[in-house]
């Protein structure tokens, strides 16, 4: 159970970055940390003691870890890179327009 709690603690650290930090890149880093915490939790949930990787089944008496969370995370990792690139591109364009990465100043300039 401590494993799950440590994974949730990592998620909360990422949430802290998103909520409290004022720099756009720090917010992006917080989002990525939340993403990693989710992957970690999925992998932890599927782990089975004395199990092996789910390759070449059909051998009698072998215990495998759960393949379903791994399949869910596998696609999500690649999607995460795509969305990270999209957010980073938006941050670059925002810096180009406003000359700052501070989200408070960006709000002031909006009016």
């Amino acid at each position, binding site marked *: 159970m401590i494993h799950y709690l440590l994974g949730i603690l990592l998620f909360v650290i990422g949430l802290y970055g998103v909520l409290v930090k004022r720099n756009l890149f720090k917010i992006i880093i917080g989002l990525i940390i939340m993403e990693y915490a989710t992957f970690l939790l999925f992998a932890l949930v599927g782990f089975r003691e004395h199990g092996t990787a789910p390759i*070449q089944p059909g051998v009698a008496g072998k215990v495998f870890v759960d393949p379903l969370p791994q399949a869910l995370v*596998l*696609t999500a*990792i*690649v999607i995460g890179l*795509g969305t990270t*690139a999209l957010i980073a*591109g938006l941050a670059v364009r925002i810096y*180009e327009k406003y*000359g700052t990465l501070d989200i408070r100043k960006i709000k002031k300039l909006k009016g």
Partner: protein
Amino acid sequence: MQNNTQNTSSGMSLIVKTVARILAGMIMLYGIYIVAHGHLTPGGGFAGGVIIAGSFILLYLAYGATAADSDKRKWYASLCESLGIFGFWIVAILGLVFGTYFLFNIFAKGTPFHLFSAGIIPVCNVAIGVEVAGALVGIFITFAAVKLLERK
């Protein structure tokens, strides 16, 4: 030759360029292996596509990403990406036409643990590999070629 390498201000040193040129082919071959054996060993379309994209990005980093003909390369990357996802949809719709439902496994299952087995899974792996490789190379070229406007 030497003049040529000295003139290119972008990119890294000659040693890095040579090593990258030798290694890129091997990395790409490894990626193709991962895609082709995705249904037998760890890996598959996502992992292999990412590795193939890594081989291209290694070359870009070693030789320096010039903005010169990046539009054409971006067009090729976009084409690969679109073809990959189009192939996946085609396989899915073939299942609807020749089988009973969308994404039906229309091909023969074959003998397990052989390269040509598991029906549509290797075909979909190849399609996804092409799509992911094109997508990541496209993202990288876009980031390398971006030019900021001067602020006043």
